[in-house]
């Protein structure tokens, strides 16, 4: 069971990401996941020591500590220096994405993203870090 930390200040956006990542479809196509929710940058910093996490997904535009600052913090921490990191931006936030990638994020998603985009981005990163080199793009034979 992989642990994913989702940092996002919107309740329903978190619920949505959880629903996608913890779904049987995601589990079948990639790996089973357990989502841990953080509602702010500070909340994330409280939860990080309780890791390790196999993937961190964070929104950029949050109040107080924004996602970029959190990314910076994560990449400077011993524990999560190499944890796969996905940043979420607005559609016109190219500058923010640039900075995020420069800080060491592995991938980005722009809102609004589809279920497929979310699944693929996260699933791919989760599998890669597990040492599974090729990722599955087809459902296993005889699947739903």
């Amino acid at each position: 069971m992989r642990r994913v930390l989702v940092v996002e200040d919107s309740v329903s956006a978190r619920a949505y990401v959880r629903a996608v990542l913890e779904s049987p479809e995601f589990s079948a196509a990639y790996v089973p996941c357990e989502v841990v929710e953080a509602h702010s940058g500070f909340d994330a910093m409280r939860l990080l020591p309780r890791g390790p996490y196999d993937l961190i997904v964070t929104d950029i535009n949050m109040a107080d500590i924004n996602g970029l600052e959190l990314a910076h913090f994560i990449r400077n921490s011993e524990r999560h220096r190499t944890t796969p990191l996905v940043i979420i931006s607005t559609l016109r936030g190219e500058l923010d994405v640039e900075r995020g990638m420069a800080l060491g994020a592995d991938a980005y998603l722009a809102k609004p993203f589809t279920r497929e985009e979310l699944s693929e981005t996260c699933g791919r990163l989760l599998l890669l870090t597990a040492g599974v080199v090729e990722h599955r793009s087809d459902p296993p034979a005889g699947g739903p």
Partner: protein
Amino acid sequence: MAESGGGRGDGGDKARDEFLSEAQELVDGLGRDLLHLEEGLKRGRLDAELINDIFRAVHTLKGLSGLFGATRMAGLSHELEDVLDDLRLGRIELTSAVLDLLFQAVALYARILASEGGNGVDPAVEVEQLLVALGQFSQRRAGSAAGVVSQYELDPGLLGVLTEYEEHRLRTNIQQGQGLYRIRVRFSLATIDSALDDLKAKARPHGEIITYLPTGTGADIDTIELEILIASRASVEVLRGAITGSDVRIDEVRRRTGSSGPPDLRVSLQPATVAQPIVPPAGEDPSLPPHEAAKVPTQGPPPPGPPSLLPSLPLPGGAGPVLGPPEMSLRSVSQTVRVDIRKLDRLMTVVGELAIVRTAISNLTDLVRRRGIDGRELAIELARLNRTFDRHLSQMQSGILEVRMVPLGQAFDKLARVVRQISREHGKEVNLVVTGAETEIDKLIVEELSDPLMHMIRNAIDHGTEPREERRAVGKPPVGTIALNAFQKGNQVVIEVEDDGRGMDPVVLLEAAVRRGVVTREEAKELAPHEVLALVFRAGFTTKKVATDLSGRGVGLDVAKTNIGKIGGVVDITSEVGIGTKMTITLPITLAIINVLLVEIGARLFAVPLASVKEAIALDESQVRTVDSREVLTVRGASLPICRLARLFGIRGHARERQRAFVVVAEAGTRSLGFVVDELVGQQDIVIKALGKSLKSVRGFAGATELGDQRVALVIDVAALIEEVLLPAETRFLASAAEGARN
């Protein structure tokens, strides 16, 4: 692999409910913020933080609606976000035209949410029109160089962790000559939320916080050190004095070059002050007729779209009076309540107490089984446990009721927006003054109240408030005032809607009522003045010769009265010509549990809500007179009409031979009626449940309650019975009195 949308099934439905709930909150907050923004603008202040909050709210709404497939909302949010982004990054200016579009957007959001929740039609056309208007404002201009920032001794990596918005704020502040300071604080991660709020509160009066940077490696899992960048005109000494704490260090960020002091400011950017009463909304300069206002030239972007967008949208048919958008309900889409977690903690404590009682009972049962504890001892123990249990159960009941309570301000907030919209539609300037917004009442009641209050306010503005010139002519201030007052009175909550307009003339009202067929000319003659005023609550009533929007169509006040009645409330009205009108709503605080007086009528039990009971007295038949086929009891020298419920309900038979009966004196608004019952049984808290639709036609009962061992007692609807019994009688009584006087 089966294709399914965003988390279908149980998880998906729950997520969607959360979406509607969160979206509702965001839209409500948006409305409030816009009003605050407008208020600030009128005082010449542009609140950057508010604009950013509004931007973030729309941004979140966009993300949400995209995720949940609410395409209409997503599309609207997308355009809106662009305009707001341009606004907050200083690319376009906030003019009244733009502000109007923002208000329209909020109204449309509410309607979209309602249609998503299954209530109302998708406002596709209006959204399209608004999108077109918004599109004309959005500008894309390259951001200016970051050169200004590099003049300061800031960590070169700083820019790399600032979002575009934060960078813009930093630049703007520097350009305006604010000083930059670095606040280093250490927080305990457990308490950081409240500690940070404290710090923000202390810092806000002195400047704008740009960003928070976590320093350190996070190796220590209990504390975190933050570096807070703040822009301020104050000196470092002032800041150090204001923001105190053992782990706080404040330093100035020096400029690299030896430059001169800050240039003069043209605009001061102060964050808004906290929590004021609902801001008075107002339209454009009222000396211009509404549709002209759009053409007033503003600096910056080209004038907005066709005037038909402001202030109201024309009917698709084209002809006829200009109407506002179709009347929508102010009801929330979601049924959720935000709860103070302390209320829940208290409830959990009571649950703990109940668990203890449960253990005691279990032990007792054991004892009985093992030792055969004697009857008397057992009875004493059980009685003690019963009392304890009862006490805790009551606490739990109150606790849960408290959770359902929300401040009336929730409904009042939405009304402020409505007031703004209505006053623009009618070209009248109106001030909304609110007191008692913190008065709490059951959430369901608040929901039911929103629409009736809206109708009453609409009536007060449309009919009640005179146009500017007329007001000036009689020496009134040009801006009308609508006062919304709420306060608790014992077991009830009173809400007053008062205007300082032209008041209601009973003569004019009566004429209109007769003309509209609401009363016949004969009936009209018998009405007392306060009853004439109450005619406005009858269906089909309007004093306008031509229907102007919904105020004139006889829809509104009658529905308002019915809805208020449904939640157990009553409406009264008083008015003085030339001075104003006041409508008073009296409501029970909570729907669910009420305190009742149990009475026996013909061996059956009924419940009378104590909130409506003034007193209960023994019936002295010798003091009963019959006046024109109505029985009247003399009580302390005054006349009280009475009603023998056994007769009214057609209940025969008595429990035992009756020597005496009792009179429960009930009140509804200004009227009293004595209900004659066989026996007073006692006072009790009951949970009132609604009667099914199948019994809709039966008058006089507000619901029923289970009394234990499956017995059910019907709860009497005092207001309905009083109206049923007294209304026709009053007419006849007055008629015969008038008749008597004439002879």
